[in-house]
C-alpha cells in the first residue's frame, strides 16, 4: 500500500484492521480530487540557532521547550518551514460535510496524509541542499508538538511572511488557515544521528486511537 494511503487509513481509525472496499474507494476518490484542487505552496528559510537545556533561540525567537531543545540538540542552524495545500482543500471538505459526510471524513484523512507527504518532500529538498555542505537534518518539529507552545505559530508566520508568499495565516486561536497547513522547525547539524521519528511518537497521548504503531 502506498504510504499516504496507509496513513489515511490510520487517520480513519482502522488501526491494523483490513479496510473495506467501499472505504478504499472513498480514499482513492479523495486523493484524486485533492490532487485536482490542492495548490501546494511552501516556503522556508534558514536561521542560526542556539540550543540550551530547555530553551532554544532561533533568529530573534526565544522558545522555551524541553522537547524542542532535545530535538535540536547539537544544531547550530535550523530551517523554518511553512507548507499549505491551499484553501480549495478546505472548500472541498466543507462541501462534502454537507453533501456526503463519509466522503468528508475520508477527504479530511487523505488531506492530512497528503500534507505529510508534501512536508516530507520539502524536508527532502532541505536535506539535499544541506548535504552539499555535508550537513544533516533532524526530523521536523512543529508548534504544538510536546511542550513547543502553539503560540509560536504567530512568529513563524510573520518571519516567513507566509501570508503574502503562500497564502498561509492563522486565526486568533493560533489555528492555521487554510487548515491543511504545517509550520515546522528542522534542525541542521554536523553529526548524522540515526534519527528516530519524533512526530506522532513523541506525543504524550499514549492511548491515542490514531497513534502511529
Amino acid at each position, binding site marked *: 500500500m502506498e504510504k499516504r494511503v496507509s496513513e489515511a487509513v490510520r487517520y480513519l481509525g482502522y488501526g491494523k484492521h483490513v479496510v473495506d472496499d467501499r472505504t478504499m474507494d472513498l480514499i482513492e476518490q479523495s486523493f484524486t480530487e485533492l490532487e485536482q484542487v490542492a495548490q501546494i505552496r511552501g516556503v522556508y528559510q534558514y536561521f542560526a540557532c542556539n540550543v540550551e537545556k530547555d530553551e532554544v533561540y532561533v*533568529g530573534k525567537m526565544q522558545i522555551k521547550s524541553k522537547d524542542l531543545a532535545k530535538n535540536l540538540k547539537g544544531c547550530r542552524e535550523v530551517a523554518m518551514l511553512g507548507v499549505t495545500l491551499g484553501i480549495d482543500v478546505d472548500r472541498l471538505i*466543507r462541501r462534502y*460535510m454537507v*453533501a456526503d459526510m463519509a466522503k468528508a471524513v475520508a477527504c479530511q484523512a487523505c488531506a492530512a496524509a497528503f500534507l505529510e507527504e508534501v512536508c516530507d518532500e520539502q524536508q527532502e529538498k532541505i536535506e539535499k541542499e544541506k548535504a552539499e555542505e555535508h550537513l544533516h537534518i533532524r526530523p521536523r518539529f512543529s508548534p504544538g508538538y510536546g511542550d513547543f507552545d502553539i503560540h509560536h505559530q504567530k512568529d513563524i508566520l*510573520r*518571519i516567513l511572511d507566509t501570508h503574502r508568499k503562500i497564502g498561509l495565516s*492563522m*486565526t*486568533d486561536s493560533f489555528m492555521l*488557515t487554510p487548515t491543511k497547513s504545517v509550520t515546522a522547525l528542522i534542525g541542521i547539524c554536523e553529526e548524522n544521528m540515526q534519527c528516530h521519528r519524533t512526530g506522532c511518537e513523541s506525543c504524550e497521548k499514549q492511548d491515542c486511537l490514531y497513534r502511529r504503531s
Partner: protein
Amino acid sequence: MSIKERLGKELLFLDGGMGTLLQAQGLEAGELPETWNIKYPEKVCAVHQQYAQAGCDILLANTFGANRCKYHDTEYSLEEVIRAGIENAKKAGTYVALDVGPTGKLLKPLGDLSFEEAYEVFAEIVHYGEKYGADLIYIETMSDTYEAKAAVLAAKENTSLPVFATMIFDEKGKLLTGGDVPSVVAMLEGLRVDAIGMNCGLGPKQALPILKIMRKYSSLPVIVKPNAGLPKQKDGETYYDVEPETFAKTMLEIVDAGAAAVGGCCGTTPEHIREMVNACQGKAILPIEKKQDTIISSYGRAVILGDKPVIIGERINPTGKKHLKEALKKRDFDYILKEAITQQDAGAHILDVNVGLPDIDEVAMMKEAVRQIQSVTNLPLQIDTVNTAAMDEALRIYNGKPMLNSVNGKKESMDAVFPVIQKYGGVVIGLTLDEDGIPDTAGGRAQIAGKIISEAEKYDIDKKDIVIDVLAMTISSEKNGAKVALEALKMVREMYGVRTVLGVSNISFGLPKRSIINSHFYSMAMANGLSAGIINPLSEEMMQAYDSYVALMGYDENCESYIAQYAAQKEEPVKKASVQMTLPYAIERGLKEEAYKITRELVKEKTPLDIIKEELIPALNVVGEGFEKGSVFLPQLLMSADAAKIAFAVVKEQLSKDHIQEEKKDKILLATVKGDIHDIGKNIVKVLLENYDFEVIDMGKDVLPEAIVQRVKEEQIRLVGLSALMTTTVVSMEETIRQLKEAEPECKVMVGGAVLNQEYADRIGADFYGKDAMQSVHYAQKLFEKKEDL
C-alpha cells in the same frame, strides 16, 4: 492637477520595493517596517527621495502593514506610524498614496475574521490616510476578493479619495483564494474603484499575459507593479534577479500592451524604476475602451452572459416548496446548502437565492443564506428579493459581483434598486412591467426595457449590467403568453443589445406534465436569444433541452459535453432492487440507492412505524455496536447513517401522506466553540444524532457563547453539545459552559474534541465527555429517556 485628472490620460509612474531596501539597511525579518517611519525617518525618506528622483509620479507611504490585525507595537500607535509614513513620503514632493496591504488574516467562512471586522480594520486606516494628507488610497497585494471588497468599501465610504486596487495573481492568472482575472475585474469595477491592476507575485514577463486578459475585460486604467522577477530561493533566502535594464525593457512592452500606470514591487530598486522611467517616458497610453461583457462573479469564478446561454438554478425559492419553507423557518441551512450543491452538480451556472417568507426576518436570513451558500459553492448567486434592505445587506456581504433579481419599470422600484447597484456593483434583472402593469405586446415590454436602461444611465449603470426579463405569462390564462415573450426577447436584443433572462417554468402554470411545455418553451426561448433561463436543473427534460440547444448551435465543441452526458446513459428502466437484499443489509453496508429503492417498496407493504421499528432501528444498532466494538469504522458508520437517512426520508414522506403526525423530536444544540474553525467532529455527531431521531440545531463553528445561550433560551434546549479541537479553544468551551450554567442551570452540556479527556471535561464543568460520536448518542438517549430499541 489632481491624480484623478491625469489617470488614464497619461502614463503614470509608481515606485518600487520598500521592504527589501529597508532590510538592506538593517530591518530584520519579522520586524515591523512601519515603526521605522518614526524610528529612522531619514532612512525611509531617503528611499522615497530616490524614487522621486527616479521619476515617480506616485509614492506609496510606508504603511503596507499598518493595520490593527498586523501592527502591534507598544511604542508607536497605528495613527502615529501612518501619520509619519505619509509625512515622510510627502517630503519628496510627489503624489502620496496611503499604502493599504492585507490584514494577514483569512476571512470567514474559512478563516476567523468577519467581513464586517475587516471593513472596520480598513476604515480606521483610510480615515487616518485622508486626515494626514494622502492623495489617494492604494489597496495592494490582495489575494482574496472578499478582503479587497472590504478594503474598497471602507475607502469609498470613509474618504473622498481616489481608490486604486491591485491584486496578486499567480502565473495561471489566479488568486491564492481561487479567483480569476475576469472575476476580479468585474467585482472591482462594480465597486467603482478608479484603477485596477496587479502587483507582487510575478515578474514583468509573467505579468504581461495577465495584463492582456485584464485589458480584455476592464474598462478602467490598469496598473502593473510586478516584482523583479519570480522569487527564487537560495539557502532559504528569497531573492529576485531581474536586472534594471531587463526589467525596464519588459515594462516598456507592458506599457505598449496597455498599462496606464507602472511601477515595481518586491526586489525592485530605484535603479529599476529609473531605467523603467527612462525607457517609457513620453509614451502615450493605449486608449481605455468601455467593455460590453455582462459578467457575474463569485470568489472563484466569473460567468459571462454571452451567446451561449447559461442556466440559473431556481430551486432555492420557497414558493410552493413545503420542505424549503420548513427549513427556512427552522434555520436549517443544510437543506438549503444541499439544494445549492445538487443544482451545481446538475449543471447550473448561477443560483437564484430567494428566502422570502411572511414570518421571517428576511434581511438576516438573506445575509446568512448568501454567506452559507458561498461557503459550499463557487457559483455566482442571484439575490432574489423585493426587500430593499435585504438587497442592500446581501449585496454588501456578497463575495464577488452578484446578480440581483430584480428592478422593474416603476419609478419607485428604480429609485430604490439602482442606488444599491451603484454602490456595490451587480448585474440587475429588469422586469418589463411598470405602473400600468405588464404590457400585452412585445413592443410595450421593449419600451419599458428602454426606460429601465436609460434610467440606469443616470446612476452610471451601464446597460451591460442590466439583463431584461420580458416575462413569460402562463399560457393557460394568457393565450399569447409565450408568443409575446418570444417576440419581446428578440426585440430587446435587437433594439438595445442587452442580455436577457426569463423565469421559464411560469409558462406552464396550471397545466399537467409541466415539464413537457417548459422544456419546449425553453428551447424556443433560447432560439429567440434568451441568455439565461431560470430553470430547475434537476429536471431531466430541461437539461435535455439545454444540452441539445448548445450542441445544435455549435457551442459544444465536437459535441463533447453532449456525448459525455448521454453516451453512457442506459435506456433501460430503473432496475428493481434485488429480491434478496433487505433494508437492514443495505443500511449496514451503507448502500444509499438500494436503501431508497427497498424502502419505496416496503412502504407499500408495511406501516411506516413498523419499518422504523423492525428494520431501520435494528440495522442502525448493529452498525453502532459494531463501531463500538471496533469492527465497523468511521467511514462505514457514516455511509450507513447516510443510507438510513434516505430510508427515513421515504418513510416520513409516507407518514405525511397517511396524515400521521410525527412525534415531536427532542432538540439538541450543537456548536463548535468560539475561535475554533474545525468542525468535522461536531458534524459527525450531528449526522448520528439525527439518525437516532433527534432534532439537531447546528450553530456551526466559531460560535460566541452568548449566541449559544440565547438560542438555548429561545428554543428551550435541554442538551448542548460543544466541540473544541485545541487547547487554545478549550478556554472558550469553558466560558460557554460557565455562561450556560449561569443562565440555564438545567441545561446539560456534553463535550468532545481532540484535546479533551474526562479529566479535562470535568475541570471545565461539562456534564458529559463523549470519546466518540456514538457515546454522545447514548448520553442523549439516556438523558431523554429513550429506549435503545426505539
